[in-house]
């Protein structure tokens, strides 16, 4: 069995006073050993809900309605909480967006790291401390002995994110879910953290699910990419396939709305409008309302995936043989 993690037709809804909000509407992907899969999309596209479903950390109002999440062949979507606790933090762990709020302000750094080691590794106090020092050293925190006794507020944002990474990696997890791990950090600190994550991934052979909206970070980190929109994966492929041979108009729009550092252009190609309301999702393709190429059928039926290679598929009616041929606005011939 090659895939470590396999998600199939995952559907997650929030049940609110205003009715059911279908945050994730049939998402499927797989994650191989040692690879980095980036899930990109805007806020509300369901990328964080997907990652929280894998961790089984969904809010009480949310429910996995359908689908399976197989970790090493075992379906963890329906696992009892007690058994999930053995997996969470040991086999699958998570780095959160905001290092200011994901650490407990009333506990020392040392206590927060050893907590994991004591629970999952059954280490004793002294041994856990020793391992915690090693971990802090591994994530590049100077004077680890001193830092162990400090509280989160005594550390800078970048340092705190390093601590969060140390906690996540304490048990050598097989899968690491990083939900916008650098969004709250400055660019120079972001560069440090991304380098660190790559280094640790190679050392520990961890698979990473990287959730982000920053396509620059994706280009830097990912081997494969899944583009999410309105609770669905609209396109998935290797990082090169998505950036250079993207097939879905939403992928094109995302790439075109980023300013290029090395080119001067007068106007950015903005995607007009806003994402649909998922308490009443559109019948057809969710992007149709904002898509410049939308046809009649797009508003009525959701397109199936078209395979472009073993790794590359997109859900768009333009790929249908009866649809008119459309050129990506990015294909200006300036790309190698």
């Amino acid at each position, binding site marked *: 069995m090659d895939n470590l993690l396999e998600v199939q037709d995952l559907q997650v809804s929030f049940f609110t006073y205003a009715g059911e909000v279908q945050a994730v509407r049939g998402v499927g992907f797989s994650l191989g050993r040692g690879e980095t899969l980036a899930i990109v999309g*805007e*806020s509300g596209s369901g990328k964080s809900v997907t990652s929280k479903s894998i961790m089984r950390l969904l809010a009480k109002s949310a429910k996995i309605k359908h689908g399976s999440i197989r970790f090493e062949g075992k379906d963890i979507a329906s696992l009892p909480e007690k058994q999930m606790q053995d997996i969470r933090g040991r086999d699958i762990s998570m780095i959160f967006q905001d290092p200011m709020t994901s650490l407990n302000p009333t506990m020392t750094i040392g206590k927060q790291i050893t907590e994991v080691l004591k629970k999952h590794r059954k280490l004793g106090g002294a041994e856990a401390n020793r391992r915690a020092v090693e971990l802090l050293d591994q994530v590049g925190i100077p004077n680890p002995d001193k830092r162990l006794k400090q509280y989160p507020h005594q550390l*800078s*944002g*970048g*340092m705190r994110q390093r601590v969060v990474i140390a906690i996540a990696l304490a048990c050598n997890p097989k899968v690491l879910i990083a939900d916008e791990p650098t969004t709250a950090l*400055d*660019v*120079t*600190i*972001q*560069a*440090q953290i*991304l*380098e660190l994550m790559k280094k640790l991934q190679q050392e520990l052979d961890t698979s990473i699910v990287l959730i982000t*909206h*920053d*396509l*620059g*970070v*994706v*280009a*830097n980190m990912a081997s494969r990419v899944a583009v999410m929109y309105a609770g669905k994966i609209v396109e998935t492929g290797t*990082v*090169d396939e998505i*950036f*250079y041979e993207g097939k879905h108009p939403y992928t094109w*729009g*995302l*790439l075109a*709305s*980023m*300013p*290029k*550092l*090395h080119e*001067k*252009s007068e*106007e*950015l*190609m*903005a*995607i*007009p409008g*806003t994402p649909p309301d998922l308490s009443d999702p559109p019948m057809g393709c969710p992007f149709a309302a904002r898509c410049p190429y939308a046809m009649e059928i797009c508003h009525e039926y959701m397109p199936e995936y078209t395979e472009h290679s073993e790794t590359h598929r997109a859900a768009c009616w333009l790929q249908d043989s009866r649809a008119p041929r459309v050129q990506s606005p990015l294909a200006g011939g300036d790309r*190698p």
Partner: protein
Amino acid sequence: MKHEKGTKPLVEVKHLKKHFDVGRGQILKAVDDVSFDIYPGETFGLVGESGCGKSTLGRTLIRLYEATEGTVSFDGEAVHGRKSNSERKKLSRSIQMIFQDPYASLNQRMTVTDIIAEGIDAHGIAKNRKERQQMVYDLLETVGLNRSHAERFPHEFSGGQRQRIGIARALAVHPRFVIADEPISALDVSIQAQVVNLMKKLQQELGLTYLFIAHDLSMVKHISDRIGVMYLGGMVELTSSDELFENPLHPYTKTLLSAIPVPDPKLERGRERMVLQGDLPSPINPPSGCRFRTRCPFATELCAAEAPVWQEAEQGHWVACHLYDPSKNMSLSKEGAGA
């Protein structure tokens, strides 16, 4: 839009300082001796990491903060110091601000009309209610919203739409100079492009001058004519946006540029990064001499002893670094760093 040679600057900032007393006899030097000009019709970008003082600088320019030392003049007139009521009003009509967080910067108990018309009322711009309402309708259309939005409340809008309301509010009093403090960083990528395009369009139509404060260098480059880079309360480099990206001089600017991940996987794979060591030092107790020396790969003893002078290294390209001071005779090689 490029300014002609010999044009008078619209905003002149001279040796501006803003210090905060943080108690226990400690002083936080958020902005420490910054000088630059902004010319009519241009977009001046201000970049730097959190805590570098860029927002404090913006707020001091519009006198949301009193300056500790130094002067800011707008169209030849001092912004700070003793002012009569009418002088103050005139100034606050000319300079407006757009804030970062479109969720926190709009009063959620006021309708869109009342939010936008607050400035119109304060300055008595509209003759009667009908004219006031018409002005609001026009402003809504200018920023890409429509009449039907006028009687709604902020919570009924998305982030991008709220930012449009914030822009309409700033434009209501016909300002000449708009300070935009991270106007797009709370928005999604596809929405960011919408707001930036709108700001560019308005600038052309209304002849506005912008101070665009942001930490996202690629967006700043896209919108700005000239860019100033700040580090720990001081400005370290200032030049045209093309020059800054093609020929950055200050080591901090170089690391900042190399840290930005580019949305191009092939380029990313071949890129050598200059990764900065360590964290930002505390602005309460900044390093002696050059502020950047603790993290600078080229730092020498001179950098610790003496603060570099803010000077024009090339035509229109200002930098504060000993490496570019002809009187200091230093070289950019790492080998020379130990000398």
